[in-house]
Structure formats: structure tokens, C-alpha cells
């Protein structure tokens, strides 16, 4: 991924952002909301490196299929455009609903692509570790063990082959596998004594253990958090008061557009576009520093 300024924010801010954006993409069916979310998600996902961008193309046929399937099976709606050979009506509303639901699906997928790039496994672990520091330490230890076991298993397998333990035939292969596993377990137990010593030597088990976090919650994280709470609150509040209602059947339509609704759209757009705003701001700043 290219340098992304949102990726440098505190994981808690990122988690809240993705929770809001994903929740709204699923729950808010208003076409304007969908369009805003889709455009922002696409723009964010396009920030990924070239390989990621090529993969985005694969989304298009799936999206088209989803849009086509709905009118083929759903015949609700008042505006009849044509009739299928079987006699079922093709309605404008079912086409619109197909498009909007497939757009919602693609939007969610795009958000997940961006989430994967911004909120890596380390941050997710840390976030869940906050809830239980013991669990987070355990995870950290396990993440260290797994690649080590794999490397040791490989070394054992090769060593056994070198002393002529050939693995041919199903039965012998199974026995060979068992032997490797048994050696691995014995060796791991032996190594665990050392690991335990190393932990004890550094005071593990003393009361009052703290959990260090490499992530800092800065002023800018506070500002971003405030921004998210404000915009997210506005959008959710508006939706709760029915200002963002939209229905497709029997005819497509929603709450009458007024100033309040336009403000809500603006808030929602700002919420979804936060990473884009931050990146644009950064780019501008660089430009100014250069000159």
C-alpha cells in the first residue's frame, strides 16, 4: 500500500471508523447514502497497491450478476417495464432494488479490503488484548511459537531423511510423520523449560503486571475520534428519526428532501470520506512544504 495517513492513527479510532462505516453501509438503504459510501470505499480501496487494484476488477462481474438476479426472481413493484417469456412482469423497482443491494454488497467488500490494509492483525490483536491483557500475551507467545514449530518440524524431517529414514508407502509415511511429531513435542517441551526460565528471570508472575502498548493516542487521534462521534452520531440520529428512510416497493421513494436531510448527507459523506480528507490534507501539506 502507498503511504496512507489514516493507517497511522490509533487502532481504536480505526476500529470505530470501520464499525461505523460498515454498519451504515449495511443498514442505510438510501441511494444517496449508498452512493456516498460506495464512492468513498472505492477511492480508499484504490489507494492500495497495483496488485490490489487489479483484484478489484473481479468485483464487477459479481456485482452485475447480483443486480440481474433480483429482477429475474422478484416481481414486486408497480412500474412494469416488460414481461418475461413465462409471463412474470419485469419491474423498475426490482431492478433498482437489485442495483442498490449489489452496490451495498460491493461497498462492504471494498471497505473490508481497505480495513485489511489499515487494521493489520497486530492492531486487531492489540485491540482485543486491551479487553484481556493475559490473553494478548498468550497470543503474542503463540504467534512466536507457531513459525518456530514449523521451522523445527522441517529441520527434524530433513535430519531424519539424512539418516536414511525414507518415507515411502502410506504406512511408512504415517510412521515417519508420527516420529517427526514425537520428536517435535519432546524438543518443544525441552525448549519450553528455557523459555519459562527466561520469563521467570524477567519477573514474570510478579503481581501488578502492566501491558505496554506501542500505539500512542495523540491529539490528532482525539480530534479524529470527536469527528467520528459527531458525524456518526448525526447520521445514526438522522436515520433513527426516519430522515434517511427509503423504500423500493411498491414504488421507489423516500423522505422528502429538505435542508436537514442535506446536512445529514453531508455528515455521512464526511464520515465515510475521513481517510480521503486526511490523505488530501497530508498531500497538500507536503506540497506546501516543498514550495
Amino acid at each position: 500500500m502507498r503511504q496512507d495517513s489514516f493507517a497511522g492513527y490509533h487502532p481504536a479510532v480505526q476500529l470505530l471508523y470501520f464499525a461505523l462505516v460498515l454498519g451504515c453501509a449495511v443498514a442505510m438503504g438510501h441511494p444517496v447514502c449508498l452512493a456516498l459510501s460506495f464512492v468513498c470505499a472505492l477511492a480508499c480501496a484504490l489507494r492500495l497497491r497495483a496488485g490490489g487494484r487489479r483484484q478489484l476488477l473481479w468485483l464487477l462481474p459479481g456485482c452485475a450478476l447480483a443486480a440481474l438476479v433480483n429482477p429475474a426472481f422478484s416481481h414486486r413493484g408497480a412500474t412494469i417495464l416488460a414481461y418475461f417469456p413465462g409471463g412474470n412482469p419485469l419491474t423498475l423497482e426490482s431492478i433498482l432494488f437489485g442495483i442498490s443491494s449489489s452496490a451495498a454488497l460491493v461497498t462492504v467488500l471494498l471497505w473490508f479490503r481497505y480495513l485489511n490494509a489499515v487494521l493489520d492483525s497486530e492492531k486487531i490483536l492489540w485491540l482485543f488484548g486491551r479487553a484481556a491483557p493475559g490473553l494478548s500475551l498468550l497470543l503474542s507467545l503463540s504467534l512466536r511459537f507457531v513459525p518456530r514449530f514449523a521451522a523445527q518440524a522441517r529441520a527434524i524431517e530433513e535430519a531424519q531423511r539424512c539418516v536414511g529414514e525414507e518415507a515411502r508407502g502410506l504406512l511408512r509415511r504415517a510412521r515417519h510423520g508420527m516420529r517427526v511429531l514425537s520428536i517435535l513435542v519432546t524438543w518443544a517441551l525441552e525448549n519450553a523449560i528455557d523459555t519459562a526460565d527466561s520469563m521467570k528471570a524477567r519477573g514474570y508472575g510478579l503481581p501488578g503486571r502492566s501491558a505496554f502498548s506501542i500505539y500512542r493516542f495523540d491529539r490528532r487521534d482525539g480530534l479524529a475520534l470527536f469527528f467520528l462521534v459527531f458525524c456518526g452520531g448525526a447520521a445514526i440520529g438522522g436515520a433513527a428519526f426516519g430522515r434517511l428512510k427509503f423504500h423500493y416497493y411498491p414504488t421507489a421513494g423516500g423522505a422528502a428532501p429538505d435542508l436537514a436531510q442535506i446536512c445529514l448527507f453531508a455528515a455521512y459523506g464526511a464520515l465515510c470520506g475521513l481517510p480521503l480528507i486526511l490523505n488530501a490534507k497530508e498531500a497538500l501539506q507536503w506540497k506546501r512544504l516543498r514550495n
Partner: protein
Amino acid sequence: MEAIAELREFCFTYPGATAPALREICLKIAPGEFAVLCGPSGCGKTTLLRQLKPALAPHGTVSGEIFFAGAPLRALSPRDGAQKIGFVLQNPENQVVTDKVWHELAFGLESLGYDNRAIRLRTAEMASFFGIEPWFRRDVGTLSGGQKQLLALASVMATQPDLLLLDEPTGQLDPIAAGEFLAALARLNRELGVTIILTEHRLEEALPLASQAIVMDEGRVLCTGTPAEIGRGLRELRHGMFAAMPVPMRVWAAVPNTEPCPVTVREGREWLRAPLRRIAAEEPAPVGEPAVVFDDIWFQYEKEGPAILKGLSLRAYPGEITAILGGNGAGKTTALMVMAGLRKAYRGKTKAAGRRAALPQNPHTLFAANTLRADLAAAPNGESPQKMRDITALCHLEGLLERHPYDLSGGEQQRAALAKVLLTEPDILLLDEPTKGLDAKFKLEFAAILKKLIGKGVAVVMVSHDIEFCAGNASRCILLFDGAAVAEGPPRAFFSGNSFYTTAANRMARHVLPQAITAEDIIFALGGEA
């Protein structure tokens, strides 16, 4: 000045053992001292070191007393014990416990309950002191062994201990990484005044750093003092421990003279006098059918990956020990794997005449049974009592057959693993770093076994960092660099032709004895007796 650590008539016996592991140890370590604790394997140095760290002290019967900074060590609270006394173990793989470098640095501070701010500052300090910054956010799994060990040291130092204990910390490292590690220790001692007690096999580099050396044997302190005083003391005792001492000390002890004992190569050069005898040149190598032929071998692990071997050509002959030397990443281990048939070269011709078997770097990868006897019996040809008897006699395993392979010492494990490999009756024996972590005595025994094997016509190929061992025992040395062989020859010609990549003995004596490559050579030339 008050001693930071003091042992008064300290005795220790393991539960169920008949003889004490430590006998009447009296020692005083002053603050700021760099003490090197040496002695053959099993002499009790690790036991002694662990007694100084309450959290790691083994159970057993104790008499006498240990004082830490004037107060009995028993009275030290667990919190102070964890904070004020640091302990670094031998194996870098096992003692680094978390998955991220920054988390590892913070581990000890987390245990002590420091807050985020303090931990951030301390980890930053440690990272910049030890030069860890470039890999501060990396996964531990991506680090080299030397980096892991440096990380282990840094994470122990993060709690700012007054006393730092290290149990053979360079045993699993290659010479370059070991040198860097010891340099970091010297810097800690010199710049921060941290008191250090170190047990070490690699005395060539460690002893010159020591302000106090302690030699132990059979649970007793044999002598203490500066390295030069140790040299004099051991010479008077005529003790076998001398085999492990730095070359200048060994030469000095074997040649009658009254001058002070040299410790470093530089002091050795100054001390050295005109030779009395000439060192004979090597006989030309026998020309026979090679057992292993590599012709222009190219190898890489992945299609897109970098080439590891780039046109490597070499020969190994039966009845010879061929040593492949070179730095990390030169392709030594890869060459051995191709030779063993574990990897296929993608270009070039390989030929191996006869059965091949390889001794892996880590003997643990071979042991599968609960006793050594059962383990060997399960190996190919292990069912034949005659072969079993021959092999156990060759590898001196007679008294060890009923033991669990994991309970053997490092050197014994290495011999047991060798026995298991030899049961397959190989014509070509491949060894990967066979002397790693072995002390001087075990190296001599191992060399004797190899000599017997080549006497039977086995072709031994060894990949090693251990220049001194190769100089003393190999028939032919090959220097690998950047995936190809850049120099080859019998050891005397090979090492005396190099200026940097050569033995300590050669560096010490090359201005008067360019052909000398081992301490024995210099002793012989000076008319002493080894």
C-alpha cells in the same frame, strides 16, 4: 569497596546426587567487574551462575551464604531479584518469548508493572544503545540468531540490573555475531559500569575482556585473578583446562620462559621470539577418485528468489576431511544440503560415490526414543549387536546407553547423534557445524573420532565457522564466498595465504612463522612441548 556479589564457603548438592555440585566456593565480585567463569563442561559453572539468580536457582541442599550488595541474597525480594539481577541464557531461540521486537524489550518492564510512559522511554533507550532501532517493529521470527541474542541482552538490560549474568551466550552464534555480542557486553561494562559474570567456551575473545577470570573444575574454584595470573596459575597446576585457553597463553605455557603471560594476539606477537625449529610443509594431497563432485552448481530456493550457489565447483576425497568455510549467507549449509540430496541443483553436475548421511546442526532433531540404546537400536543397522558395539566404542558412548538422549551434555549429545548417523554406514559423512557449542575437550574427542573414520576411507565433508578446528583437523579447506569457492587448499597453505580469514595462531605468529596455523605449530617451532 563492598562486593556486589560474594559467596562464602558456598556448597550445593542436587537432590539425590551423592557428590556436591559446588564445593566451598569463596568468591568476591566487585562492582563494575567483568568476570569470566570458565571450566570444562560439567564443572559447575552454570550451577554457580544460577545460584546467583534466585528465580532460577535449582533446588537442592545448600550450605554457606551468598551476599548481594552486602545483604544475604535469600532476603532479596522477588521484585528486586527480577530487576537488579539480569540473566541471559545460551539459546537465543528459546529465550526470546514474544513475537515482536518491541514487545520483547518491554517484557521485563511489564512484569515489574511500569507504566506506558516509562516503558516507552526505556525501550527507546535500549533500542538506541544496542542499535535495534532499524528492526524495532519487526517480527522476532525474521531476525538472525545474533540479532535475537542481542535482543535478549537488551530486554534484560531494560530493567537496568546492577549485576548481569550470562550463561554461554555466544554458544549458538557464529564467530561474527559472537564477536559483536561480546563487544556489546564490553561496552555495557565500560560505559555503564554494569557488573558482568559470564561463562564462556569462546575464551579467545572473552578472556581479553575480563578484569577477573575464574577457573572452575569439579565444583571447585581452581584459581582466580587477572587472565595473566590465571595463565601462570594453570601452568603451575599443569591443568588440562589449558586446551581451552587463548593461543598466546597456551604457547606461553608450553615454552619455558619467565616473562608475563600474554593474553591477546597483540601481546602474543610482542612476546614471541625467534623460532628454533622449522615447520615442515604439508605433503601433497593424494590424488584418488573423488567421492563427491560438484561441477558448476547453481541453486536457488525459489524461482523468483536470489541464487544461493553460483557456479560452485568442488571435490571431496575418501579418507579426507574437507572443510567448507565462509561467512553467513555464503551458501555453506545450502551446499551441504545439495550434497546430502535434500535439495536439487537446478544447473550443473553433482556426483556422490557411495552412501551419504548427514549430521544435522542440532542433535535434538535425531533422537526419537527414551534411551540412547533404544534410539540407536531403532536406526538402520541398529539391530546388529556387533555394529552397535563398534559404533558405541568409536563414539565413547559405553556408559551413556541407558540415559535419555536429552539428559546428555552437549558434547555427549553430539557424539550420540554421530553414532546414529554412522549406523547407516555412510561412505560420505556430511557435518553441519559439528563443533557449535562444544568445549575444547569435546572438540578434541570429536576430532579423534573423525580421524578414525577417515582412516577407514570415509569422506568427511564439514561445514564450519570454527577456523581453529578446521586448521587443526581438516585435510582440505574450501572458502565459500557469494555462492562460489574462492580459495582451496590444504590448511597450512590455505590459512597462511590469508591475512584476515585465518587462525589466531597464524595472526599471532605470521611475522616470524608464516606457516604456523595452530598453537601446536608455534610451540613446536619454539622448541616447547605441547
